């Protein structure tokens, strides 16, 4: 019987007491969820990896500022959201309009894998690529709001806590993101 995973608050206390190695528990625990948001927000595995590492290091350096250690994951997510917002703004200025699905070898592998699974998988992959492209054309604020609401399934209160933006503004961003995605995805299939 394996030992139960230590609770977040307990791990945070150990790290603050000087057990630096204990921080790896939090990194392993939250990397998948944070990574998922980062890849969708930033559009590439490379950018997501950079944002993820920066977030974890920043969180470590400021762990004493986490007012609710039992919710350290949500606190780290807030740091990541802000980090991605900065990266997203830089990407917009670089006029990046095409989503890279990761390293070329990963994208190729995905295509090969889908082809091996048959036509339905091919279509699924194509659908996902269209969604990713449409998502990349949203401005940073709208993409962030859509992902937090529809993919991360946060409540508007939780979104406000993570972003520092008021609920009314968030609702407007979500609506505009939805309208734009609808329009873009309809164009993709009517052409």
């Amino acid at each position, binding site marked *: 019987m394996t030992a139960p995973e230590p609770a977040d608050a307990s791990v945070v206390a150990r790290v603050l007491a000087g057990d630096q190695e204990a921080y790896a528990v939090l990194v392993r625990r939250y990397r998948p969820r944070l*990574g998922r948001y980062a890849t969708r927000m930033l559009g590439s*595995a490379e950018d997501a*990896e950079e944002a993820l590492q920066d977030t974890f*290091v920043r969180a470590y350096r400021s762990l004493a*500022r986490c*007012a609710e250690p039992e919710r350290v994951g949500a606190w780290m997510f*807030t740091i990541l959201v802000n*980090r991605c917002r900065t990266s997203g703004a830089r990407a917009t200025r670089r006029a990046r309009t095409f989503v890279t699905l990761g390293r070329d070898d*990963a994208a190729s592998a995905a295509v090969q894998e889908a082809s091996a699974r048959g036509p339905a998988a091919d279509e699924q992959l194509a659908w996902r690529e269209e969604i990713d492209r449409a998502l990349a054309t949203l401005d940073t604020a709208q993409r962030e709001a859509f992902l937090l609401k529809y993919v991360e399934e946060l409540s508007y209160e939780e979104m406000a806590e993570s972003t520092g933006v008021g609920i009314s503004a968030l609702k407007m961003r979500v609506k505009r993101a939805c309208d734009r995605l609808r329009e873009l995805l*309809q164009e993709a299939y009517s052409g």
Partner: protein
Amino acid sequence: MARDRMDDVSDGTADDAALRRVAAALREPSAADRALEARAAAIEANVMRAIARPADETLGRTEVARPLPTHRPWLLRPRTVSVRPLTALATAAAVLLAVGVGASVLRDRAPVAQTTIAAAEGAPSAVAPAADTVRIVQFVLLAPGAREVALVGDFNHWQGGSTPLHRASAAGLWTVELPLPAGRYTYTFVVDGSHFTPDPAAPRALADDFGTPSSVITVGGGHT
């Protein structure tokens, strides 16, 4: 199948359902997710290596002020220390904290008094201090109901235990003095170990990524 999805989108009543299918597709692992997953061990190793290094060397992106010199090198410098006339402690910030009961905050913008000692090479106080001058900055908080108050900020890596304030008066005035090089620092007070309280007499920090109410002080320049 894709065309069916988009037909749903054109029907106003099915909008939410169509968008939820988009969201469901986004929740499925992508090629980028798999690429990131393949890098999991490397990411963890990079993070653990980075946190083992001093903060100002880490990744070049973490904005942390240079660590306080803990070994008193500034005291050992061969400089003449001239003391400026003390700035009188103006009316202390009348911040009443009823810790644990709910705060009743009266914001008083009376300035935090700052006592500075300029390290200069025999120069009178009218001469601009050397660029690497360290100043003694006094932080003050009025918290009569507090059992303990600590100062956390960029200058001590937000480590609560490293800079406790001491109770300077029966009325609940808590103070600490820190030698700080010139620069801009974000900080806050921690009352009774858990209550973050910004300095009522200092500008609030903007866009705090951590949700911590905090303040900003700029040390150095022509005056502090």
